[in-house]
């Protein structure tokens, strides 16, 4: 007997309408339908969800931690993107 396990899926759950889906964990499943069932039976036992996304883990493209600084540091010195960068006299309202 081959020892090949069912593929891994990542599970994302919307806990209630109005919120975005959030990563909950993972499950193994042989196919997409089974992955949805397994996600439901594993991660919504306490009414934690109103919607589930599942995606094969090997289909996710992730950034590389080794490139973290190249990816994310350049945003740090763009302080002019934040509203607090700008000095406006207190008398001016509704800005």
């Amino acid at each position, binding site marked *: 007997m081959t020892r090949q396990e069912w593929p891994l899926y990542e599970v994302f759950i919307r806990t209630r309408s109005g919120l975005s889906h959030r990563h909950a964990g993972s499950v*193994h499943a042989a*196919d997409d339908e089974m992955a949805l069932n397994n996600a439901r039976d594993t991660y919504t*036992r306490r009414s934690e969800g109103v919607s589930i996304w599942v995606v094969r883990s090997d289909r996710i493209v992730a950034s*590389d*931690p*080794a490139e973290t600084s190249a990816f994310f540091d350049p945003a740090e010195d763009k302080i002019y993107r934040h509203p607090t960068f700008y000095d406006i006299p207190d008398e001016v309202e509704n800005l």
Partner: protein
Amino acid sequence: MYTQGLDQAGKGGPDTREAESRAQLDAFQARIDAEEKIEAKDWMPEAYRRTLIRQISQHAHSEIIGMQPEGNWLTRAPTMKRKAILLAKVQDEAGHGLYLYSAAETLGVSRDEMVGDLLSGKAKYSSIFNYPTLTWADIGAIGWLVDGAAIMNQIPLCRCSYGPYSRAMIRVCKEESFHQRQGYELMLTLCRGTDEQKAMAQDALNRFWWPALMMFGPNDAASSHSAQSMAWKIKRFSNDELRQKFIDVTVPQAEFLGLSVPDAALWFNENTEHYEHSDIDWQEFFDVISGNGPCNRQRLAKRRKAHDDGAWVREAARAYADKKAAAEAAA
């Protein structure tokens, strides 16, 4: 979410990793000391990875094997309410095993490998689950004592330095909050019941007290992995500290039930404000850990049978998925 499957194409696994330099190790320790969480694909020392794989998979195996002693009374639960509660609890254990296997999988080990190690007897799991559940009161004792001890171990793990483990433990602890309470309430019902029920409760405490204390592991002096695990913030308190805390909170709970803790030498030290207890029979602990407990063989045999009986089912599901995928590709 950082899983084995997320490895970028073309990058080598741990085998091609360059030797760990002093600078890397220092930088890693600095992150740990700053209470930063380590995530799956971050650089980490091989020993850290191995320690985590060992600990998380043992933890997962314990949840899975731990379904058996309680599962033993599912079909005989005395009321519909108790049956539902116990079933929900045993199901949680399956869920917790699943969360933990997933957390370990982020470190580059497959569930198949871990399960293989469990079934071959290579991997260890908590010694407590190798004791039999002989009466219904054992279900109460397990909830009260075993889950009580487990919670004490697990709450610090919610702050473990490894992100996926810490997140899994937060979920586990949240879900387990009812487990200990239902066990104590079950014991309370028995202790307020008939003489036979009360005797049943006392007998369960007699049999589970010492094995529950052993759950915290060997004395600090004899614990081989403790110091490094503490430095890496995988572990936050020593075995003896947690064991003492457990005894201190549990003895008054036993007194409230009107049960006696099976340790004639137990006394409360007013100076230290801790209970002093007799020595633990470490020979028994090491026997059970190395395979010679009352139920070791039985527990593994049942797990192996479930695994073997399920082989054709898992295979069929894969074959069906392959056929469907091929049909879709052709369409």
